């Protein structure tokens, strides 16, 4: 409470409080003539915070500083203090309690004689059939139900629960409601309706209809209450046409008016509070929203998959594919791919492997020698793909061969390639895997290959331009 060491402020606050909370306005009469805090300040008796001086010119503004004072719309009505309210409540409770007979449980185990006990807890011979003329097949309830078989059902019963008159503890508000849609002679007197404070305007309209329909079984009310609106009225029930109806979706307690008229919504108001639209919109939106959601989920999943394959790419994996050699003959080989190298091993299958043109040497390439890998063409279920590598001896590493040396840049690189064939899914998987590895490694061969391709492309472009 930084302000409480401000003498000037405290004094002004006390003064303002007196003036504002005194219903008799005697304080104001007395104090208006002399503004003590102002005078004292002017005399230099009171310390004042910087910036305060300017505000003192206007009384109203100075009062605004006294923020504890709530300027109520209803002057002259003073809120009772909490203590007074609590005392009154306790008093009421005491009065109510006095009307209630209290019986407290007492443990009195042996105050009762045996005779009384056996008299009180006498066994009744329930098996003895009573001779009654009563017709067991017909009860009073059944009779009453038969008397009103076609009870005019109140179509607004769903709103009965918003009746606030039957609840203590739940905040409720009382309204005078004019049924402005009725012919003049029937709407002379307003209905007093108490509604729970949390009800929406729409629900309050339902409650009004329920109450009215309960009292007037042959009423002209429409079952669709969205057609009705609540309008602010004068005390005599005259609708104030300048104001729109209360927003049906708002809580009724928000509105301070106690006199309201129920009538059919004007087309203007209906357009404004189009109570039907939100529902249909919601229904339409739902599947769409779901679609979008599913789509985004699917996208996320795809991205996750992609990340997983990328992360798993350097892990060793063996594929069984066909290598297409220079004479277009196919030989089955094992293609081993890891983050370090790519190995090609012939598959030994009896006779076929013996044919010399089919023979494929076991060969291994360091991953830095691999420059490129791409799909070439689809032939039915089969797909061919090509693997581009540098054939330089330094880069090449035979199975039997020595260690992998770092590739030297000064030597001009010539690129060679192997073509493979596999079923489309496998081919795609291999290409994806190798490309992931290459992206991560980004070896010199790859850079060179890409540079060379670009050069070729620009040359071709230039050629086109100069033609």
């Amino acid at each position, binding site marked *: 409470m930084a302000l409480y060491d401000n003498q000037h402020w405290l004094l002004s606050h006390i003064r303002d409080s007196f003036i504002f909370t005194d219903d008799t306005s005697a304080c104001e009469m007395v104090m208006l003539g002399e503004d003590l805090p102002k005078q004292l300040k002017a005399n230099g008796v009171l310390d004042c915070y910087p910036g305060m001086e300017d505000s003192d010119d206007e009384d109203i503004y100075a009062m605004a500083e006294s923020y504890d004072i709530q300027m109520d719309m209803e002057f002259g009505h003073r809120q009772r203090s909490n203590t007074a309210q609590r005392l009154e409540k306790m008093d009421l409770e005491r009065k*109510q309690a006095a*009307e*209630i*007979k*209290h*019986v*407290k*449980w*007492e*443990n*009195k185990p042996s*105050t*009762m004689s045996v005779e*009384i*006990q*056996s008299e*009180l*807890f*006498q*066994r*009744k*011979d*329930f*098996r003895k059939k009573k001779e*009654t*003329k*009563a*017709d*067991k*097949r*017909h*009860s*009073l*309830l*059944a*009779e*009453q*139900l038969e*008397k*009103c078989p076609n*009870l005019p059902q109140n179509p607004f*019963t*769903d709103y*009965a*629960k918003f*009746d606030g008159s*039957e*609840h*203590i*503890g*739940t905040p409720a508000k009382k309204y005078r409601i004019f049924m402005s849609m009725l012919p003049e002679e029937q709407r002379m007197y307003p209905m007093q309706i108490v509604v*729970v404070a949390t009800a929406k305007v729409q629900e309050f309209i339902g409650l009004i209809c329920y109450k009215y329909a*309960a009292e007037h079984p042959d009423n002209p009310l429409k079952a669709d209450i969205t057609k009705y609106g609540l309008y602010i009225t004068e005390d005599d029930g005259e609708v104030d046409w300048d104001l729109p109806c209360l927003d049906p979706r708002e809580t009724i307690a928000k509105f301070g008016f106690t006199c309201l008229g129920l009538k059919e919504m004007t087309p203007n108001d209906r357009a404004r509070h189009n109570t039907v639209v939100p529902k249909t919109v919601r229904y339409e939106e739902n599947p769409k929203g779901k679609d979008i959601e599913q789509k985004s989920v699917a996208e996320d999943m795809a991205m996750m998959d992609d990340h997983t394959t990328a992360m798993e790419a350097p892990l060793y994996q063996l594929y069984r594919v066909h290598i297409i050699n220079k004479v277009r003959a196919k030989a089955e080989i094992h293609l081993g791919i890891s983050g370090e190298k790519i190995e090609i091993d012939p598959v030994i299958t009896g006779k076929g492997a013996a044919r010399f043109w089919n023979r494929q040497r076991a060969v291994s390439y360091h991953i830095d020698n691999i420059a490129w890998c791409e799909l070439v063409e689809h032939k039915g279920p089969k797909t061919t793909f090509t693997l581009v590598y540098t054939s330089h001896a330094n880069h090449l590493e035979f199975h039997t061969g020595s260690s992998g040396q770092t590739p030297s840049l000064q030597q001009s690189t010539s690129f060679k390639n192997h073509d493979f064939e596999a079923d489309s899914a496998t081919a795609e998987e291999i290409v994806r895997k190798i490309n992931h590895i290459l992206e991560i490694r980004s070896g010199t061969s790859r850079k060179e290959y890409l540079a060379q391709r670009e050069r070729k492309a620009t040359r071709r472009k230039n050629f086109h331009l100069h033609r």
Partner: protein
Amino acid sequence: MTGDGPPNEQVIFVTGGYDHTIKIWQAHTGICQRTAQHTDSQVNALDITPDKQLVAAAGYQHIRMYDLGSSNPNPVINYDGVAKNVTGLGFQEDGKWMYTGGEDCSARIWDLRSRDLQCQRIFQVSAPVNCVCLHPNQAELIVGDQSGVIHLWDLRSDHNEQLIPEAEASIQDIAIDPEGTHMAAVNNKGSCYIWALSGGVGKEPTKLSPRKKLETHKRYALRCQFSPDSSLLVTTSADQTARVWETTDFTETQILKHEAKRWVWDAAFSADSQYIFTASSDGVARLWNVATGVVEREYQGHQKAITALAFRDEVRVSS
């Protein structure tokens, strides 16, 4: 017509629940006639005194009685001194005493005749009492508890017996038909156990012999009641249905199910056994035609779940 006739010539239908109110309805129209306040507590059980003057409500730490004849929204008698929730209550048929059961692990007898002749009796068990049921001989109280034990308390001799139909299943409700031939008990597994009763008159002790086990519901069972003519049994459950069973062979004859699909907490038969009232978590009580399974009336007005109901009807003299 209701309310105009002499007090014992009327239909009384009362409901209570989580909204701390007790509502008195005109049964044949569905109109709420009165709302009474049940301050600070939900209503666990309701019953109407045999003279139809008062309705008793079991709540947290007290039993309150409301005058049915006046429009006083406050109770007229308040019974307190009970430690926890009172879960069940009922009356001796002449209104001499009231019996209650509660979560403080005890069943009690409250003397209603006058304040001087207090004959309060207490029966302690080892687990919270979920339900109490009076044998038609008006001298034996059946007490069902949370641990799954059924106690037969002979009020005259103070002798008691126990039986456990199923281990690790709490007894939710017990009922005996007015003719005293069957006893039914439902548990939290949705099973219903039926015993055939014999004896119980004069000095002869009541004998129970297991008759049948019914898988009445898939979930928690909440209430069982026999019809006044002893021909039907109704069971209600958390599985959102009430089911009606024939007592001749205990086969299912009707399922009372509403699209609102909420727990069915309580049920009561009309005096002619043709109709059943149910109380449900959707805040609506319903009147069902047992033969057709059709909802005849709905009672709307409670703001929260209805957990208890009481109904008194009259059998008409045939003309």
